[in-house]
């Protein structure tokens, strides 16, 4: 059996159990509608312009946040990773900021930025900058000195060694960071829409449906859409990564499984 089908067995099993618990009456179908019903609602939603607009708004905020994360984390990671004095002087600040859950900042963000798209982009950026940043810093620490010596022994300057050895070495690690960041940014984007009372976005749709009509099938349909988007993003990034970094130990080990 091809791995694709084998992977789908788990998903199919999950839907079967979900369907089953509703049918035998283990849970109230109004609080947990069966997947067959949710699927029907979902198809209906995909035909609604307002819902599609919500999905686009969420994806756009997510993409912008991720773009800013990359734009900040890559140069910052390279600087912090190659300048030990800069790193030690910012260590305490970074270690203080990093563990703060982004959603804990929502009140602060609502007060300062409001609850529009800026808010979710800011928070998603804040949450997703760390994996890329730290992966780059650690990857720079991790370069084999012999590789650097080899480049130096061919008469390359420090700057050239950084460009021709450090950058390619760091790339797969930064990419793994990006994959983590992409998932985190999506979670935080939707959560912020949900918690900060955004006007538009899948998170806003979910909470509005729940408050207004208590329609659990709409709520679940929205959740399924986000889950599916997250799956596609991760799968796409993983495949692209395996193609780009075939030489890397980490991706090769993953590709074999």
């Amino acid at each position, binding site marked *: 059996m091809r791995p694709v089908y084998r992977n789908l067995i788990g998903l199919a099993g999950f839907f079967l159990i979900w369907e089953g618990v509703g049918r035998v009456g283990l849970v109230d179908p109004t609080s947990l509608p069966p997947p067959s019903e949710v699927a029907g609602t979902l198809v209906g939603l995909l035909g609604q312009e307002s819902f599609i607009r919500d999905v686009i708004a969420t994806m756009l905020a997510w993409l912008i946040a991720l773009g800013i994360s990359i734009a900040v984390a890559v140069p910052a990671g390279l600087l912090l990773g190659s300048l030990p004095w800069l790193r030690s002087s910012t260590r305490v600040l970074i270690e203080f900021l990093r563990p703060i859950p982004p959603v804990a900042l929502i009140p602060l963000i609502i007060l300062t930025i409001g609850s529009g798209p800026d808010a979710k982009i800011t928070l998603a950026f804040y949450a997703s900058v760390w994996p890329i940043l730290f992966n780059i810093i650690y990857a720079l620490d991790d370069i*084999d000195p*012999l*590789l650097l*010596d*080899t*480049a*130096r*022994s*061919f*008469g*390359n300057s420090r700057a*050239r060694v950084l460009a*021709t*050895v450090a950058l*390619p*070495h760091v*790339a797969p690690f930064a990419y793994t960071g990006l994959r983590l960041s992409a998932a985190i940014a999506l979670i935080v984007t939707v959560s912020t829409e949900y918690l900060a009372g955004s006007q538009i976005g899948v998170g806003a749709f979910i909470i509005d449906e729940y408050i207004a009509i208590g329609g659990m099938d709409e709520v679940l349909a929205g959740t399924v859409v986000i889950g599916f988007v997250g799956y596609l993003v991760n799968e796409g990034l993983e495949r692209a990564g395996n193609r780009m*970094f*075939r*030489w*890397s*130990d980490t991706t*090769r080990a993953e590709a074999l499984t």
Partner: protein
Amino acid sequence: MSTMLEVRGLAHRYGAGPDAHVAVEDLAFTVAKDELACIVGPSGCGKSTLLRCIAGLIKPSAGEVSLHGDRVVGVPDDLAVVFQDYSRSLFPWLSVRGNVEFPLRTRVGSRAERRARAQEALGWVGLSDAANKYPWQLSGGMQQRVSIARALATRPALLLMDEPFASVDAQTRADLEDLLLRVRRDHGSTVLLVTHDIDESVYLGDRVLVLSKSPASIVADLKVDLPADRDQISTRGSSTFVELRTEIARLLHDRQPAPAEPAPAAASASSSDELAAERFLAAEREEAHQKTAT
């Protein structure tokens, strides 16, 4: 014959003050153009430090190194190094061709010319067909051939080799030794090769420089009186070869400092030099064997 490499009064210490570790002390020797000189010494005697000083990777504490008469400051342009650990010195993100072209990027302007020279160097080591492969797709011996090709592609005035064959199995090692002899005969390279293996130093070298235990200094400078055409079986069996390797083993053994603790019974019972040399050789072979086994 003109002098390619001259090392004068070279010393290097790590650290400063009373805790400083003196790795190399007052070393002096020359290597003539087109010569293959081997430096043999016990493990940890400072061979690698010496090589790094010559390559300009570290600045010696004292003394100077000249390459074809020019004093070495920083990394010289026309020098190439082959390290022991091929798996760590090849760039994993570059193909075999990319690796061989790497040092040419700063040396050869034309892309086509770089490619041609890389292909030529790969031909010398018998890897013409592997140009598009990646290092991880090759065996250890093939990877080391790639790093030899990469070094040769720059057409270095001096090729430095730091225990280049110490991490491959015995058969591959013999093949690589013969490959080095052939390439060097065909292309007239000047090579300085560092090894801890006495047999290898005699088999490969025109000259063998014997180093003492740390801090390294030169104990003997021996000419290898073997024909230029060598082969693994008859050369290693010849009386000249056996005499020379016994002499080197004895030199290395005599220079060992007296053990701080009482030696094991078997060692203390040894009275004759001959016996001690034999034992050293056995230990040497054992070490080589263990290296290949891991």
